[in-house]
């Protein structure tokens, strides 16, 4: 048989089925719809953000803004997919994306400080301690996806804070979009990049650049004046911002050099990080250290590498750990006093308390299952209102058999905590299986649950569970279990029904997903 023909036929089979094609197209449309909506929302949002906020905006306010924006689009933008009336597509949608993020819920100074500076509050956001962006004998700047802290080392006090969510620059532990911080001539510059593969020239096929990752400007940059920091714990005002691509490209170039000069992998380059003493410090609890060491000093004698360290036994404070280049020298630990009090922690806990999950859709059978799952996961993870479990079941089929309603599906549940305008996934679990429900008045109650077994018994248990229902067994192996569309809808419903100021949800290591 002809070799080429065999290969062609073999690879011909690697195509998505119609359902997959439709699903992907819907996801693409959903993304572009968000862009479109947010372009219209911009005016409303700008007005909202320019007024001094006396209280946290409610979910109903957010919903109103979205509703007004939708009306704006319908009236002024037409119902076209893009507002453009020509055949040309917009050259860049970054402005739209920025507008999407302008719905960010501003945090109070205390929230930014606690989420950035308190290891206990930080533990659900990252496995590493916050990154150091600047360090000299007087000043330390560190931060994460929530905020930046400008700390006066001489006076042991916080001189300023930056709310990274409010300036749409909270992209840490993400996939493609990343936030960078650059300190240059008394200016603190925050900008974002989007990574992409090799760039293409106009004549594709003739001249391709190589495939190394390249960083492109994304969203807006913001500049803060470090000479204007105060002596109280307050949020700093931005002195300049914009989306000028040339300017951001300049920051990318300077930032790459800055990162190259000042940041090193801590584990590889700090001897102390690999020591037994550090193992004891970090332990198996809350302990952590910064992923990157900040390098300061200009020559071998003054060269120092520093990270923030949280000791497991002291869950509420970071220390600055500095290792010099001198042979045999012990690291120096400097206690940071961020002024975080129990009262501040309580206040932040209260602001970020999450209501219990309630099913709000109109299928009583699914409702019973979802509330059961939420209850089960909450028992393990519900931490006095800090976390909430939101089920996102993928239902394969419902069958009425001998007085029982059998609901087959992949029952996924994630637990989230609130960080400003984002729900962060802190744990999750799935039960592929079948719920047996019986009628209970107008609703149902759970009679029993067939859950798939683990490991090599998985396939057999699914086969047994689906016996007598043709086509069902395959469904458990056809997809990937969790349906991101269902998950997004479930989170959206939870957010809207509780009037929460949440705009995104996020999994560790992935870009945040904007809610509608």
């Amino acid at each position: 048989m002809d070799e080429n023909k065999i290969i062609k036929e073999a690879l011909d089979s690697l195509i998505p089925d119609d359902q997959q094609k439709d699903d992907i197209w819907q996801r693409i449309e959903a993304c572009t719809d968000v862009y479109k909506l947010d372009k219209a929302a911009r005016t409303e949002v700008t007005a909202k953000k320019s007024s001094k906020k006396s209280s946290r905006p409610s979910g109903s306010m957010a919903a109103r803004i979205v509703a007004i924006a939708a009306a704006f689009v319908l009236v002024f933008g037409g119902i076209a997919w893009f507002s453009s009336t020509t055949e040309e597509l917009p050259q860049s949608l970054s402005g739209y994306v920025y507008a999407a993020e302008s719905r960010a819920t501003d945090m109070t100074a205390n929230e930014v400080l606690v989420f950035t500076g308190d290891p206990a509050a930080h533990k659900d956001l990252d496995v590493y301690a916050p990154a150091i962006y600047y360090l000299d004998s007087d000043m330390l700047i560190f931060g994460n996806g929530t905020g930046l802290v400008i700390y006066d080392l001489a006076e042991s006090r916080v001189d300023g804070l930056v709310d990274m969510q409010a300036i749409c620059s909270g992209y840490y532990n993400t996939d493609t979009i990343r936030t960078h911080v650059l300190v240059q001539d008394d200016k603190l510059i925050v900008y974002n990049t989007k990574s992409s593969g090799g760039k293409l020239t106009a004549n594709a096929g003739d001249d391709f650049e190589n495939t190394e990752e390249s960083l492109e400007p994304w969203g807006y940059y913001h500049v803060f004046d470090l000479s204007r920091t105060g002596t109280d714990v307050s949020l700093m005002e931005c002195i300049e911002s914009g989306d000028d691509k040339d300017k951001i490209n300049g920051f990318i170039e300077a930032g790459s050099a800055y990162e190259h000069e000042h940041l090193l992998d801590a584990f590889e380059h700090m001897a102390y990080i690999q020591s037994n003493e550090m193992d004891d410090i970090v332990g198996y609890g809350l302990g952590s250290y910064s992923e990157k060491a900040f390098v300061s000093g200009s020559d071998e004698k003054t060269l120092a590498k520093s990270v923030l360290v949280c000791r497991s036994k002291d869950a509420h404070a970071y220390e600055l750990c500095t290792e010099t280049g001198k042979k045999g020298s012990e690291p120096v630990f400097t206690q940071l006093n961020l002024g975080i009090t129990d009262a501040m922690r309580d206040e932040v806990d209260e602001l970020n308390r999450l209501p219990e999950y309630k099913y709000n859709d109109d299928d009583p059978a699914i409702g019973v299952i979802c509330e059961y799952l939420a209850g089960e996961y909450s028992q393990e993870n519900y931490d006095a209102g800090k976390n909430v479990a939101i089920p996102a079941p993928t239902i394969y089929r419902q069958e009425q058999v001998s007085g029982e309603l059998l609901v087959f599906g992949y029952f996924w549940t994630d637990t989230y905590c609130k960080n400003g305008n984002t729900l962060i996934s802190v744990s999750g679990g799935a039960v592929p299986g079948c719920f047996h429900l019986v009628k209970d008045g107008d609703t149902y109650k759970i009679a029993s649950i067939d859950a798939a077994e683990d490991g090599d018994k998985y396939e057999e248990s699914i086969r047994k569970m689906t016996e007598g229902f043709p086509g069902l067994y395959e469904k458990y192996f056809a997809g990937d279990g969790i349906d991101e569309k269902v998950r997004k809808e479930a989170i959206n419903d939870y957010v809207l029904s509780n009037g929460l100021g949440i705009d995104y949800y996020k999994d560790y290591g992935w870009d945040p997903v904007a809610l509608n």
Partner: protein
Amino acid sequence: MQDRERIKEIYDRQVDRVYRTAMVFMKNSQDAEDIVQSVFLTLIEKGIQFDTPEHEKAWFIVTTRNRCKDILKSYWRKSVDFVDEGMNETADIVSTDPPDSDIRAEALDIIMSLPEDQREMILLHYYEGYTVNETADMLKLSESKVRSQIASARRALSKLTRR
């Protein structure tokens, strides 16, 4: 609606190619779907216009390939287990094929077991029909390297043609 229709037309025309290319690299459908979405969003975001059908085809292949390589580079920190899981997926696809496509299934099995660069050559040279010269140009590789990788892939596949 013109723009939406134009993109939808391109989507219908290219979705199989993008998905197939992504599957050859990623070996699992979830990543392949994500990559299809990402590639089309790139098309929309950048407002790419194509001069010729060949330009369109090449853009999708190279953009998909680059996106896959980006993801693969960052896999170590995300989900090593998932990669292993995904490895089995093509085997599942193969095993559900009807019996009369045994050779095709075996060929797919062999292709997927090849190293990444050889899989890429199979896709571009044998399937998409690019010459050695064009493939080398696209991937910024020397012609001799392309020839050698194609030869290695061909050796692995040769047992199929000896049936």
